């Protein structure tokens, strides 16, 4: 279940938030999110304060609020789950607007909504103010195993290639009257996935050969002057 990812979220800018070192931003995001998650749901004022903190950071970064809000739709599936909770949870019940709902469910739904939304907004702020390659550099400085950093670097590098390939295949399908709404169309989607894999894999093979040709031995060389 879930919304798709259209494109990368980076919003170009030169604010303090943009320029802050990526590893610090990741640590701050982690600390902030842990704090939010650890806060008991009944401390309503605290959540207001967290929202204010995010608002200030977003304000300083000059990323338009609408830009972030549009992209926070990603949490919609879980909103739906949260909205169901008051009706299906157990325990003592209470009346809201004439509907009988579970008290514990109501509180859980609120906490889920507040924490989920704050988490998404905070992550979006990081994503909007940090270029993918800075993020990689930050993770490297945070001692993420170098193999994982490398896999991630290649993934970010290939994401455009693969999604571009996929977009082209989609256009080709739809220009021939294809619509994905019907399970009878699954075979077409799956064969597209197969073709996508072969194209991607063969490209990966060629890139790897090109790297070997320039002396690659399995470790990325340190190149100074890298941004």
């Amino acid at each position, binding site marked *: *279940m*879930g919304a*798709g990812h259209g494109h990368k*979220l980076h919003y170009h800018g030169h604010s303090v938030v943009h320029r802050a070192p990526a590893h610090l931003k*990741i640590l701050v995001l982690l600390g902030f*999110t*842990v704090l939010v*998650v650890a806060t008991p*749901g009944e401390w309503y004022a605290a959540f207001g304060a967290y929202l204010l903190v995010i608002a200030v950071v977003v304000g300083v970064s000059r990323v338009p609020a609408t830009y972030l809000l549009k992209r926070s739709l*990603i949490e919609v599936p879980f909103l739906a789950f949260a909205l169901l*909770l008051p009706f*299906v*949870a*157990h325990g003592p019940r209470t009346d809201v607007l004439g509907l009988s709902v579970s008290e*514990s*469910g109501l509180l*859980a*739904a609120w*906490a*889920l909504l507040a924490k*989920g939304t*704050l*988490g*998404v907004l905070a*992550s979006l702020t990081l994503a909007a103010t940090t270029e993918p390659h800075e*993020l990689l550099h930050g993770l490297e400085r945070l001692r993420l195993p170098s*193999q*994982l950093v*490398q*896999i*991630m*670097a*290649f*993934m*970010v*590098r*290939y994401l455009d*290639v*693969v*999604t571009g390939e*996929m977009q082209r295949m989609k256009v080709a399908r739809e220009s021939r009257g294809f619509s*994905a709404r019907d*399970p009878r169309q*699954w075979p077409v*989607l*799956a*064969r597209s*996935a*197969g*073709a*996508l*894999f*072969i194209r*991607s*894999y063969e490209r*990966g093979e060629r*890139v*790897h050969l090109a*790297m070997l040709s320039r002396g690659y031995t*399995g470790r990325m060389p340190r190149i100074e002057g890298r941004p």
Partner: protein
Amino acid sequence: MHVPNGFLDAPTSMATGAAAVVCVGAALAGARRELDDRTAPMAGLVAAFVFATQMLNFPVAAGTSGHLLGGALAAVLVGPWTALLCMSVVFLVQSLLFADGGITALGTNIILMGVTTVVVGWLLFVLLRALLPKRPSLVPLEAGLAAMVSVPAAALVFVGLYAAGGTADLSLGELAVAMVGVHTLIGIGEAAITFLAVASIVAVRPDLVYGARPLLARRELEIRATATEATA
């Protein structure tokens, strides 16, 4: 299905985080055997591929749609260890660059949609491959069946985690029925797509399918023998 921040309580999130670290550590060691010095570029590519296929939303029932998890598919294509690395990197990128799945729930998401689908999918695949006749043409079927089971398995693990650290007081029985029910449907979609995707790859480049390689080995040896004569 991406679990957001605050969905599970802190102790559970920490436990899944620790479990995820252990699994990824094991996968880092194990993946060297699967792809050697090609590990990073190939795994990065497969991660991008899984990421892209997770964007393929397919219709399920009554207006809901599911998307491919891809764990079983990745395991059959590149081997279980590399698949686990790919899935972990996908979730890391999704949570950092796309705000999909909470950063404190990263461990949970890796265990749920990465480790569970890869392990269940791969074990079942290997079992089926051992039981059924050893033919490359059956690999897509085995992969599809493995994928079908891997999705409700992930839903069950989700219910288990919710029992341990859920933040609302739900009837676990009902939750389990609902989750497994919906995800059995999604599993059928996953199975169909996995079957057809693996079938179209086995048809063109069977050597690219990790899970099919043991079945190709015999044919390859014969060809090598004739190639020696031709070129000697």
